Every structure is written in C-alpha cells, then in structure tokens.
C-alpha cells in the first residue's frame, strides 16, 4: 500500500497496484465470510449506526433541501421553455430519487463518515491495536469490520430517503415562494411522475454505494500494514475518499445504464 511510484519502475508499480487490488478483493471476501457468524454483536452495530447514520441526519436535511431548491429553480426554467411547468414536481422528484439523492447522500456520507472510518482503522493499525486483537484471538474482521459494514448498509438507504424527502420539501417550497405554485400540486405531480421502479432504483443504488464506501474505506485502513505514523494515516484516508468517490460515480453510471 505504501508506494510513491516515482522511484519505481513502471512494471513493478503496476504489479504493486494489481496486488493492492487483489488484497482489497481478498479483504472483501474475508469480511463477507465472517459476516453471518457472530450476528455482528447488536450493541456495537447500534453504536456504529448512530455514529455513521444518525449524526449525518442534519447534514442530509440541509443538503437535501438545498439541492431540491436548486433543482426546482433550474428545472422550472427548462420546463417553461418546453411549455410544461406543471411537470416541475415530477422532474424534481425523478432527478432526486433516481440520481442525485443516492449519489449526493453517498458522497456526503463518504466525506463525513467514510474518511473517519479509514482514519480510525488506520490509526488502530498504526498503533498495533489490530495486532493486539489478533493476539487475543479476536478476529478483527468480525469484531471491527462487520459492524461498520452493516451500519453503512443500514444507514445509507435511510439517509438517502431523508435526503429525497428534504429535497422534495425544498423544491416544493421554492415552487410556492418563487413561482407561486401550490405545494400539493407539486407533490401530486411528483406522485404521478414517479413509479415504483424509480424508488427501487434509488434504493438499489444507495445499498450498493453503502457497500462500496464500507469496503473501500475499511479495506484501505485495514490493509495499511506499513503505517508508521499520523502522516500515513491521513494519506490513506485521502486515498480512500478519492477512490471511493470515483467508484461511486462509476458504479452510478453502470447501475443507471443497467436499470433504465
């Protein structure tokens, strides 16, 4: 994992990168294997859900309302040009539920909780706490990773729903204040435009993104075997956030293409 790439010949660099990818894959397989075993210790799971999920709720409400209001303003302009401003609710709801809700909620959670997960695990690795766990015959994967992975997967869909609803509220508010529309017409239009498949798509996306965030952030922290100090911990966290962002956006395209 520690490689600066400059002093190495490209072949070795490539080899190391591929090995790194393989290590991440192995990490995922090992975590998935211990996933069902200890029922993930309910208390720790609850703690992680509070940590990853509950503390992002305010953020989701504010970000969601801002994005919804922005969408309302932008789409009203576009729809007016095509002569159908009454479709505003449907347009905002479609953009939010299918696309922006899952992606933006995932990116916000990645920035807030994902970076923290990597730093936390990498810090434990650097201070040899993970080795200590292994010495005590406690499987660090089952003890540390499983509750965090599950907490991500449970929290993100809920946070995404919160984001979507906040966005619709923000959009409706703008349509009332700026375009003298009615909130109930806005929601009616949204209800007519949205079908169950749209919601299923948003939900699937947020589940996949949650797994991606947990996998990349935890894996990067856990596999940083040669971590020596705080500098390495911060570098690994930055790495994880960058890789996970790209992974989320890339997967988003794939899921959109597959499901529509």
């Amino acid at each position: 994992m520690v490689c600066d790439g400059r002093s190495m010949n490209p072949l070795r660099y490539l080899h190391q990168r591929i090995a790194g990818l393989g290590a991440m894959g192995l990490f995922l397989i090992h975590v998935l294997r211990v996933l069902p075993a200890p029922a993930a210790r309910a208390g720790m799971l609850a703690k992680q859900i509070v940590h990853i999920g509950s503390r992002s709720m305010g953020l989701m409400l504010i970000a969601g309302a801002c994005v919804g209001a922005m969408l309302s303003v932008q789409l009203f302009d576009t729809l007016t040009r095509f002569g159908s401003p009454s479709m505003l609710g449907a347009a905002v709801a479609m953009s939010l539920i299918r696309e922006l809700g899952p992606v933006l909620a995932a990116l916000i959670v990645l920035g807030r909780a994902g970076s923290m997960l990597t730093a936390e695990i990498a810090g434990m690795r650097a201070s040899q706490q993970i080795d200590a766990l292994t010495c005590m015959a406690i499987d660090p994967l089952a003890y540390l990773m499983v509750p965090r992975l599950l907490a991500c997967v449970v929290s993100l869909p809920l946070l995404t729903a919160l984001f979507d609803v906040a966005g619709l509220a923000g959009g409706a508010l703008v349509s009332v204040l700026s375009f003298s529309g009615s909130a109930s017409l806005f929601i009616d239009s949204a209800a007519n435009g949205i079908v169950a498949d749209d919601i299923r798509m948003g939900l699937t996306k947020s589940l996949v993104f949650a797994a991606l965030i947990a996998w990349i952030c935890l894996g990067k922290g856990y596999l940083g075997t040669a971590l020596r100090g705080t500098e390495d911990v911060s570098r690994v966290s930055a790495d994880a956030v960058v890789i996970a962002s790209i992974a989320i956006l890339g997967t988003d395209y794939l899921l959109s293409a597959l499901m529509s």
Partner: protein
Amino acid sequence: MTAEPRSSNPFALGLLMLAGLGCLAWLALRLGDWQSPFARHYELTARFVSASGLREGAFVEIAGVRVGSVAAIAFDSARYESVVTLRLIPGFELPADAIASIRTSGLIGDKFVRITPGGAAETLPSGGEIVDTESSINIEELISKYIFESGDQ
C-alpha cells in the same frame, strides 16, 4: 479498548430509524404507488386493438375522478390484442356494459383510461373483463387523414 470509544445513544438511533423509515415509507406509498400485497382491489381487464402510448401506472378515470391505475399491459399472441389490467379502488362494481377507452389528457399529454359506466343491471365482479373498448386515438393519423382528404378535393 478503543474499538468502541463512543457511548451508544438510543435516542439518536431511534430518531434515524423513525425518520429514515418514515421517509422511505412515504416515498414508496405516496410517490411510488407501491401496493401492499394484502390490499384489496377491484381488478378488471380490458382488451384493446391498440394500447399505443399507454404505460403502466397511467391513471384510470370515471366521471373525471381518478379511481385507479393501469397495473399491467400484456400482449395476447392468439388474438393480437393488448390486454390491459386495471386496478381500481375497492367498494363498488361497474355495470357489465361499461366502456373503457384510452384517451389523451390534453392534446399531447399522457394517455389514460376512461371508463364510462353503462346502465346494465348486472355488474362486473373483480377479475372480470370490460368487453366494450375503444383504442387509443392516434393524433398523427387523424391529422394526416384530415390533410390528405382535404387535399383530394
């Protein structure tokens, strides 16, 4: 143990569960038209020569009031017709001679199904079929017909 340095907070957990599940349920029920598998419906089928432009989820109107939606559109390969399943609110039954027609809201709006109740004494039970139907009107055909017919003269 630094593995779990934070104290658990039942209130925060409950708040997330309540708000998150509440929002999810609202999205699914209000916006997504997700039907509970136990909900009772008044389901009817109707065969059309053409269901062109009609999509699943389109609304069904009786007397200008939305009373349900199109649950499924299938193709009957034996008779080359479309079979449209209509899911209506329960609590009433239509006369057997009701007419189902596919209409457009406005000139270029969405297609929907309009049911005109008849006057027969017998009624259609749930799962019954509306026999009398009118297919979608193709505006383009109408316009071209109008143009070419007037051009002939």
